């Protein structure tokens, strides 16, 4: 045996890889996400039919799909640990900060994987021509990181309560509302094909939201995680 002290980042990475390995074997969370997202997207497009939706509506639709899909799958990482009684095992060995970072990274990976599938499908079905892709992806990435950051702490809270699914939605919605509003606005601008700088203030808001959420989550996580 070799004792080698390692950093917080390394430990977070260990937790992330462990979750990734589990997920690749079971695919519980990603299946839930994809199922929800694809179904909703196809259903709406089917209902709307020939008539195109305006850029504003399309942006709203996109983010509603992402938001609700996230709600169906991002709490899994904590809920599963509680249900299979591995939470205590983890608590005995890892510091709260490393656990938060590991789970956050996992949720980000989950969300980005979802988007890799959803974004092409969305563009295919909605006929958005002339979009500013750079702006679109900038908004997408920043908002997704912010979404994961805000929901990871809430997922930890929910894993210790009853009625987990509905509670996750109820607790997340007020907190995510500013993110959603800004992301929708930024995406709308990108669909209109506006210049990148026109969305700059939205990007600024998304970035500061992300930073604030991670900072506050790190401060509060220990109180949720420790009994």
């Amino acid at each position, binding site marked *: 045996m070799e004792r080698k002290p390692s950093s917080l980042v390394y430990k977070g990475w260990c937790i992330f890889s462990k979750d990734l390995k589990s997920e690749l074997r079971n695919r519980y969370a990603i299946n839930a996400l994809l199922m929800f997202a694809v179904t909703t997207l196809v259903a709406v497009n089917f209902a709307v039919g020939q008539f195109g939706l305006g850029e504003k509506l399309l942006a709203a639709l996109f983010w509603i799909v992402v938001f609700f899909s996230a709600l169906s799958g991002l709490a899994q990482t904590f809920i599963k640990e509680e249900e299979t009684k591995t939470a205590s095992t983890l608590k005995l060995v890892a510091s709260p900060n490393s656990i938060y970072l590991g789970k956050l990274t996992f949720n980000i990976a989950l969300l980005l994987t979802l988007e890799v599938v959803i974004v092409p499908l969305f563009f295919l079905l909605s006929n958005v021509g002339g979009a500013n892709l750079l702006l679109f992806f900038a908004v997408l990435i920043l908002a997704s990181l912010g979404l994961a950051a*805000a929901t990871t*702490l*809430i997922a930890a*809270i929910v894993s*210790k*309560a*009853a*009625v987990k699914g509905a*509670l996750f939605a*109820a*607790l997340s*919605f*007020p*907190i*995510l*509302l*500013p*993110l959603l*509003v*800004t992301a929708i*606005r930024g995406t709308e601008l990108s669909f209109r094909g506006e210049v990148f700088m026109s969305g700059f*203030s939205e990007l600024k*808001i998304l970035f500061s*939201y992300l930073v*604030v*959420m991670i900072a*506050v*989550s790190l401060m*509060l996580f220990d*109180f*949720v995680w420790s*009994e």
Partner: protein
Amino acid sequence: MPNFWKFLLLLLMSAVIIAVWVMEPPQNQLGEVSRLFYFHIPAAWVTVLAYFVAMRQSVLYLRRKELLYDVKASSAAELGTLFCILATITGSIFAKMTWGSFWNWDPRQTSILILLLIYGAYLALRSAVREPERKAALSSVYCIFAFPAAVFLVFVTPRVYQSLHPADSIIDASGRIQMPAPILVTFLASLVCFTLIFVWMHRLQTAIGRDLHREGKL
């Protein structure tokens, strides 16, 4: 609250209510409906005050882990919900009478709505956890966590939607309050009354909560 204060509050509140109805409506163009202003703004103010009280008590709970702080936090949140509902309803009535529809996504309306959602979520969280210490810890964390989000929303929405709120007719460009004396006095008196009512109800609620907890019923 000592009896002297209760009596004084009764007098003051009665005076306010009489003044509200006896005086001219504060905004002649808007008519009778503008009388709501004396109640709507204080209610909104108490909603925000209650949230800050809840947040402060939540921080104290997380630091010192005494359940009394949690009782104070949840009492404040429950009262805040009540006043928030009042503020939302009075605001919607005003909106309907003045601008034609109950809801307009005006930034102030949205802000009060998000507070209502946060309060609702907080209460839902509390009812989903049984053990008192866990309930206290989780709800304290949520109360604090929701604050930055609320701040973001309050600053984000005005960029997206124009404000319909008549604040501009009462507070002029230089920010000074342009209210004639009788209206100003009545308004401030109402504000004080609402605040005192909140403080009184909060103490009662906390005392009840503390007794219930002692008997092991919370």
